[in-house]
């Protein structure tokens, strides 16, 4: 019974990773850059929710909505100020800038919210589900996280497949020049991508800190890196890949924690990244990099 409960917890954690991984993978696909500040947007989202709920005492739903709006604006602002001027710069310059933005956000949070770890109050008020005569307990957070993750995936896939903006995104990610010739505004498309990724980061922060309530300026870094591993695992640039990679990574982490060693759980996650890069560098659903002449 405990195995099943570990797997369910793994899927729940993995759902959060996959929502974060979507931000990485979409930005990579469309702007061809790794936004290492993505994890820190989650941390900022956590502090926004914490401030509104615990300091101002408002309703959790309002807190989450405000966090989504502010994180979306933050994502667009980061892109506009830090990345847009580097559109034609070498990719290494953009990567270093992303790391710089990450440190900036962490230290900004340290300055504003202080160094002490905050205890996040769950935004999810759903009772735990007891199954099999009380032998199997599923947390209320899990009951919300998994369906929400599925809804987000379906909505996002539909948006990308069916809407004009979504088609423009696919076009830009595949062939930027050809997309420009069709009349697609690349800067606007990249800004929309950052907006979507950052809004999802805010949702992820609400879910993640509700299950793992310790919140500090460094809290976004580790889940951010793990979601990046998930994106690479699934095949960076692929939306279903982010989902599969995230969930597998969550299960591996929780099972590793339960059966191997809780200290080594993170090491196991990164070992998986190394294995994936060695065996299938393009990830599970990664596209073959193949030029047809």
């Amino acid at each position, binding site marked *: 019974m405990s195995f099943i409960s570990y797997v369910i917890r793994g899927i729940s954690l993995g759902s959060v990773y996959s929502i974060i991984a979507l931000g990485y993978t979409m930005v990579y696909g469309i702007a061809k850059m790794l936004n290492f500040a993505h994890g820190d947007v989650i941390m900022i989202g956590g502090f926004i929710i914490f401030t509104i709920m615990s300091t101002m005492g408002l309703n959790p739903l309002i807190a989450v909505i405000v966090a989504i709006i502010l994180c979306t604006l933050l994502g667009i602002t980061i892109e506009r100020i830090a990345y847009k001027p580097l559109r034609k710069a070498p990719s290494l310059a953009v990567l270093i800038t992303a790391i710089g933005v990450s440190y900036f956000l962490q230290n900004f949070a340290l300055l504003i919210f202080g160094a002490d770890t905050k205890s996040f109050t769950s935004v999810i008020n759903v009772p735990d589900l007891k199954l099999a005569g009380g032998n199997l307990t599923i947390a209320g957070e899990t009951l919300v996280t998994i369906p929400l993750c599925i809804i987000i995936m379906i909505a996002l896939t539909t948006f990308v497949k069916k809407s*004009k903006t979504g*088609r*423009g995104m*696919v*076009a830009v990610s*595949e*062939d930027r*020049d*050809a*997309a*420009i*010739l*069709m*009349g*697609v*505004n*690349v800067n606007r498309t990249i800004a929309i991508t950052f907006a979507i990724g950052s809004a999802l980061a805010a949702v992820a922060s609400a879910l993640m800190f509700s299950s793992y309530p310790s919140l500090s300026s460094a809290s976004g870094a580790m889940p951010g890196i793990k979601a990046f591993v998930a994106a690479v695992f699934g095949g960076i640039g692929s939306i279903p890949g982010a989902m599969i990679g995230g969930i597998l990574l969550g299960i591996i982490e929780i099972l590793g924690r339960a059966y191997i060693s809780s200290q080594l759980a993170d090491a196991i996650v990164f070992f998986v990244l190394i294995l994936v890069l060695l065996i299938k560098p393009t990830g599970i659903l990664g596209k073959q990099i193949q030029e*047809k*002449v």
Partner: protein
Amino acid sequence: MAMLEVKDLQVYYGVIQAIKGVSFKVNEGEVIALIGANGAGKTTILHTVTGLIPAKTGEVIYEGIDLLKIPAHKIVSHGIAHVPEGRHVFSQLTVYENLLMGAYTRSDKSEIEETIENVYKRFPRLKERKGQYAGTLSGGEQQMLAMGRALMSKPKIVLMDEPSMGLSPILVEEVFDIIESIRKSGTTVLLVEQNAKKALSIADRAYVLETGNIVLEGDAAKLLNDESVKKAYLGE
């Protein structure tokens, strides 16, 4: 007045000058051929006209506006479509979705569907394969799709970059028949080709480019019989 006039265009790649002061005109209803060897600058000129590459100096006047002053993604809505060298269809989108991308700047859905039907009439193969991913099409079909996609914006002028490249002789004939029919429907064509013989036989006028300069210009029929053109480009 010319529909499209390029005046003293100079383009650099870093410190290397690719286009060294090129001027030419395209009148409405004409098929104009730009011919020349590999590396002469033909593709660079088309890319500069549609804004993918910035120019150092010069003007590209189209219906009274300087195209060099407007952002690349806004050019197609002025009635200029570009069929790029190597087709550049979106392989992860279906044939139908590729055609929709061609109409990206248009908004009336029923009019767009009507244009798609017209494109299907012109290219029946595309209709047969409308649900297929463009990456799975043959080279010839991809060329047809690239041309169909360009027509989706209802252009007044189409720039075509090496449409016959890499195609079998039968398909080359088909491509030139299509260019002929595009002209007949009233659309102006600026054609870049290495297949100089075919290009000159279809064009009204032509310009011969050599390492970034126009070295010859005139009626296509005359150039077809010009001794130096014959020797350098027609392999006779």
